[in-house]
């Protein structure tokens, strides 16, 4: 079976979907690997490392798309490239299926089996393939670094002959994978960390990292079986905003990671809350790309409002492209290995398996994923 890995097209994307170490493992399984030239360059993996690992380097990008039985990518493909692919081949990457209806449709028409990494379930068993988690946790680390560097103060406390520098207050909204990692990193740097999340069980998780949890009584909040939050009612959102206000005002750094899977992220910080913050304070809006938790945040750049810098870069994991690639690549390998059929040396696509069942979007010209199908109605 031929596994093909084309370069990422998105400008500024340094991550790579497959690293040499995993190439080796795939070949160990009995697959052949064909990669595009300079595949890992931006993530500091040289072509000859791939060659040593046993991959072949294609002369042209099309060659990969045409011949590969499995295409591995990180970002969703340019819609134009779907047509070039071999029918009934398997395409694995982020697909953002909730929003990319055309792309899904394209896959369906060309009878490509499209597997969406976002849709990997959050079960204990599937964790090793869970790219959202792996990338999110790196993202959490990055956001803190960016904020700390932007802040005109230091995070830790310092009692010095030149007076005492108080520890910086960091407030983290949304305690998912990214949020937790952000808490851990900020704590490491010696900041006073407070966090909030509507999912009640997160309180314990926050304490388990030595941080404070901001108690807000929202009445009952639900969570999907995958551990995702369910959207809050407008009423609940208001309560939350009001209560957070004061905490935000006294924070030097606020990091918002609030996401509601498949929905537009909630707006949690309004212009006037910004006004309440000290000059020089920093906000990181992890949700900026998908709409933003902060009023006025701009995807892809850092803006300053009322003396408060709002970082909305997005694609956070890309800052640590090397590690991010390693983890994503490892996620892909685990996925393939899990369903690899040693005898026939091929990927066994068993849609009854609960993992594949929830992450395969299109198959043999059908949209097989329930959620997405209902979406398009």
């Amino acid at each position, binding site marked *: 079976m031929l596994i093909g890995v084309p370069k990422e097209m998105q400008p500024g994307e340094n991550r790579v979907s497959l690293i040499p170490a995993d190439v080796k493992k795939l070949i160990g399984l009995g697959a052949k690997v064909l990669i595009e030239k300079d595949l890992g360059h931006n993530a500091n993996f040289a072509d000859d490392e791939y060659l040593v690992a046993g991959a072949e380097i294609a002369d042209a990008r099309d060659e990969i798309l045409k011949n590969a039985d499995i295409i591995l990518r990180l970002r969703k493909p340019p819609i134009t490239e779907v047509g070039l692919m071999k029918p009934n081949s398997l395409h694995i990457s982020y697909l953002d299926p909730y929003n990319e209806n055309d792309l899904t449709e394209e896959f369906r028409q060309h009878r490509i089996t499209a597997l969406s990494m976002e849709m990997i379930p959050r*079960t*204990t*068993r599937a*964790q*090793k393939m869970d790219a959202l*988690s*792996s990338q999110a*946790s790196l993202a959490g680390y990055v956001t803190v670094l960016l904020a700390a560097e932007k802040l005109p103060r230091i995070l830790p406390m310092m009692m010095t002959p030149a007076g005492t520098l108080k520890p910086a207050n960091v407030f983290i909204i949304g305690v998912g*994978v990214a949020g*937790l*990692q952000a808490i*851990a990193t900020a*704590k*490491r740097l010696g900041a006073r960390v407070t966090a909030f999340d509507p999912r009640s069980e997160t309180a*314990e*998780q926050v*304490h*388990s*990292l*030595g941080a404070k949890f901001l108690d807000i009584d929202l009445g009952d909040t639900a969570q999907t079986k995958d551990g995702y939050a369910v959207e809050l009612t407008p009423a609940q959102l208001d309560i939350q905003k009001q209560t957070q206000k004061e905490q935000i005002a006294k924070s030097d750094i606020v990091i918002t990671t609030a996401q509601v899977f498949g929905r537009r992220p909630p707006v949690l910080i309004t212009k006037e809350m910004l006004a309440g913050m000290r000059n020089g304070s920093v906000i990181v809006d992890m949700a900026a790309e998908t709409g933003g938790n902060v009023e006025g945040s701009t995807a892809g750049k850092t803006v300053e409002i009322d003396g408060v810098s709002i970082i909305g870069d997005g694609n956070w994991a890309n800052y640590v492209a090397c590690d991010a690639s390693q983890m994503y690549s490892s996620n892909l390998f685990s996925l393939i290995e899990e369903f690899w059929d040693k005898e026939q040396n091929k990927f066994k696509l068993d849609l009854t398996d609960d993992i594949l069942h929830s992450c395969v979007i299109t198959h043999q010209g059908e949209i097989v994923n329930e959620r997405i199908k209902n979406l398009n109605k």
Partner: protein
Amino acid sequence: MDNTLLINLCYVAAAVLFIFGLKELGSPATARRGNLLSSVGMLIAVFVTLFDKNILDFKWILLGIIIGSLIGVFAARAVAMTAMPEMVALLNGSGGLASLLVGFAAIFLDVNTTFTYITIILSILIGGITFSGSFIAWGKLSERISGKPVLFGGQQILNLILVLAIIAAGVMFTLQPENLFYIYIVIGLSLLLGIMVVIPIGGADMPVVISLLNSYSGLAACAAGFAINNIILIVAGALVGASGIILTNIMCKAMNRSLSNVLFSGFGSVKQIAGTAVGEVKPISPEDAYYVLESASNVLIVPGYGLAVAQAQHVVKELQELLEKNGAEVFYAVHPVAGRMPGHMNVLLAEADVSYDLLLEMEQANPRMETFDVAMVIGANDVVNPDSRDNETSPIYGMPIINVDYARTVFVLKRSMASGFAGIENPLFFKPNTRMLFGDAKESIGSVVREFGN
């Protein structure tokens, strides 16, 4: 009279020396001096006894002492360090035999009341058990006899019958002391009983048995003391008897066994019980956990989300250092999904400044699991759940886990029997080699750490 007074005062002195001796034997720093002290006490006791007005003839005594000393010295010199326990068993046996003989001889001493007769029988009985028991123990340790437990139906009943028979014979004897026949029966049966109680025990448990028999030999001496009405025997014997029990108890704990379980449950058969004991949860106290850890030489710590919740990382680090100082090797096995975020455990362990070199990945830890005396599961649950290895029907079947259940002993530190994130039962908690150390992880480990004090 004056003479006896003097002798007895010396006995007091001897007793004091024994007391100090025993106390000091208990701690490494003073142990050697303690042994010396008690030996001095012994010297005094023996020496002054020679002035006892009842002693008319010394040649036999001298003969006996010389022979005994020669054998003793030779044995002590000759024996290899590794063979020490056997040696102790033998010596203990000879002590028991001596008590038996003294008791026997006491019959022929002038005055004898019912009371003394009873004590005489006791000294013979206990002495006999000690002698033959120690002898068997020696055999098993030195592999002259197979170390395997010898088990057959009705063993317990047989022992019971033996005991009853001995009592009967004893009563008969007290009624007609002039008839030595019964005494011989008592002797014979005692020796037999000694054998019977030890054969069903596996070689591995012999040290405990010896320690117990040692305590018996103390009691034997004590009984003999009553028989010939000699205080120092009573005091010294009682001291050894009591402290012996405590020591036995401690040794059991270090082997993660209970004394009662050794004393009554037909010894070796414990293993079967344990083997069949699936479904039974066995809690353990921090103190008992200490005894096991203190005698372990390879310890694996498996942290989980609970460690984080309890914020126990610092005290875990301290435990690690104490164990290392105590000569043990300590490693941490970190499961990739332990905790609630990737690298959760790393954050905590780094905070406690646990060296990165001590962290084993699951793949490194599992192959060498058998080599660990203790695996301490601290607030982990799903990641050590054997079901995901053995039970196809389990929702987490297929997730690789850390196979702590293959370690010699497993401690699981958690607050209750509650399940973890995956919300599923964990059969690990019911394995025979698992002990549950209930309570907040930080508290529990804190108490264990404090057990290391003095």
